């Protein structure tokens, strides 16, 4: 039943159906009259990054960013520029002084968000960002980038609540680990090796495997070697910062042979909850390089290496600070320049320490 122009006629029927149908069927009328109406973008939608802070009263002090520079290194078009804030003496404060994002270069790939270990940088979904200039106006500086956690929860509720839960859990874990570690010192002094599992039961189950890796007394190693090996193996097998806090604390603490350690550690007062995890007094990001090295005067190479790092546990190198030090001392890691927050200072100090150790 084909007449000339049948195809054309059918086509026009389709067009007519669409036209008339657009008055009745929502699905056929797809135009949104922007800017009077706007399409609600889905939750996951991303445009440019911003930095999250936790407390409105002091955004700069409570921002989560510690200027570890991982996002700067991983950014494909290199659109981020960070300069760490230092005080008058040159000691690094763990936050950025300058944090520039060039939005004309940023390709909104979200890689900076994925690699940030501190949940500090997140993606915004604001797409109306045109400016009147091409250069300065498109660079966003630190004040423009800082936005509150409430704002983040408003634009991305599911993601923000997951991040909040994760940060809370991490904080609790750190607090729980600090308290029993303080109680562990007198107990550990009495029977250092056998009691190593005891401080850990209150903390997460992850620390239990670390306790199992303590080298027994009758292994053919010197006390120093035993202590280092316990720490190294627990760091390597568990791999997470909280779990390594408990087991190596005993080796770091009891450098002298077990029999004589009863007196000295028992006299020390328990540290406050804000003290660093484990018994590494140098593990404070607020201390300067020389202060940290002075505090780590013990004979263990791994301790000195750890003191040379930036103490942020940011996993920039692929480990936490203790794990990296143990890996270098044990020979598993030969790259000495992986500490991003520490920059050249740390790399040079690590090189110096390794050379000294090589000569010794």
């Amino acid at each position, binding site marked *: 039943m084909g007449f000339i122009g049948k195809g054309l006629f059918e086509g026009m029927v389709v067009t007519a159906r669409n036209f008339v149908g657009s008055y009745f069927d929502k699905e056929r009328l797809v135009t949104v009259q922007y800017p009077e109406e706007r399409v609600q973008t889905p939750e996951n939608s991303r445009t440019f990054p911003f930095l999250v802070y936790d407390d409105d009263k002091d955004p700069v002090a409570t921002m989560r960013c510690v200027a570890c520079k991982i996002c700067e290194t991983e950014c494909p078009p*290199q659109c981020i*520029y960070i*300069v760490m804030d230092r005080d008058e003496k040159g000691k690094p404060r763990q936050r950025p002084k300058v944090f*520039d*994002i060039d939005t004309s*270069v940023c390709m909104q790939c979200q890689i900076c968000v994925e690699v940030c270990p501190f949940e500090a940088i997140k993606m915004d979904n604001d797409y109306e960002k045109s400016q009147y200039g091409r*250069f300065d106006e498109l*660079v966003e500086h630190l004040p423009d980038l800082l936005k509150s956690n409430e704002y983040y929860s408003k634009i991305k509720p599911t993601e923000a609540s997951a991040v909040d839960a994760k940060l809370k859990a991490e904080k609790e874990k750190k607090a729980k680990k600090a308290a029993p570690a303080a109680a562990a010192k007198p107990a550990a002094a009495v029977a250092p090796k056998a009691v190593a599992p005891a401080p850990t039961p209150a903390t997460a189950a992850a620390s239990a495997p670390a306790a199992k890796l303590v080298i027994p007394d009758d292994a053919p190693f010197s006390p120093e070697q035993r202590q280092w090996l316990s720490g190294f193996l627990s760091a390597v097998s568990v791999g997470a910062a909280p779990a390594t806090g408990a087991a190596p604390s005993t080796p770091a603490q009891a450098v002298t042979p077990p029999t004589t350690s009863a007196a000295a550690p028992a006299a020390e007062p328990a540290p406050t909850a804000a003290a660093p995890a484990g018994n590494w007094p140098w593990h404070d990001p607020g201390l300067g390089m020389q202060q940290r090295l002075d505090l780590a005067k013990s004979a263990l190479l791994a301790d000195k290496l750890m003191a040379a790092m930036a103490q942020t546990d940011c996993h920039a190198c692929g480990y936490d600070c203790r794990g990296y030090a143990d890996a270098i001392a044990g020979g598993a890691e030969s790259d000495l320049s992986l500490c991003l927050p520490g920059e050249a200072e740390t790399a040079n100090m690590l090189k110096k320490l390794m050379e000294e150790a090589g000569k010794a």
Partner: protein
Amino acid sequence: MEPIETIKEVVVQAVAGAQLEIVKSTPAAQQPAILADREHAYAVGKFFKEDPRFQMDFCSCVTAVDFLPKGDKPGFIEVVYHLYSVSLKQGPIILKVRAPREVEQCHVPSLTPLWRGAEFQEREAYDLYGVTFDGHPDLRRILMWDEFTDYPMRKDYEPPADYEWEPTPHDDTLQRAAQAGGIMPPTAREELEKTKKK
């Protein structure tokens, strides 16, 4: 497909005088290649195309790789051909040909008379690496403009230092922007002064 050693034996018997080697890849990839010498590359390609066991009638990918001299090993530019068979649904056979890096000596026989699909890709290798394909019907630049000199994808290529604006400069870009007199934000310039003083 038979293992690569069998294929090599077959080719050595069929093409007189060909000197072939096997180049291994990562164990996971399982893609070893046959390295042919320049004089016999065309004959080897023709054999792969016409032999009824292989019938490699589809030349999928042609590319060049630049290897810089390392120690006392001379550098070379390697042209890689990936061949597949549409009629027998098999492949890939990977054919590699090497040439010295100096532009006057960097000549390789063109396989475009065998596979028309290699035409544009060989032109691209010529444009970006400086490999001259002898026997190519129309060898001229394809991606860069015709008056361009030098070969941009080589490892020792120096890009021109033209900088307009570098708001987030990094590492060597920072140094070169400073040398070229590029405009930078004040903080970047401060940091540059500090590194110079050190």
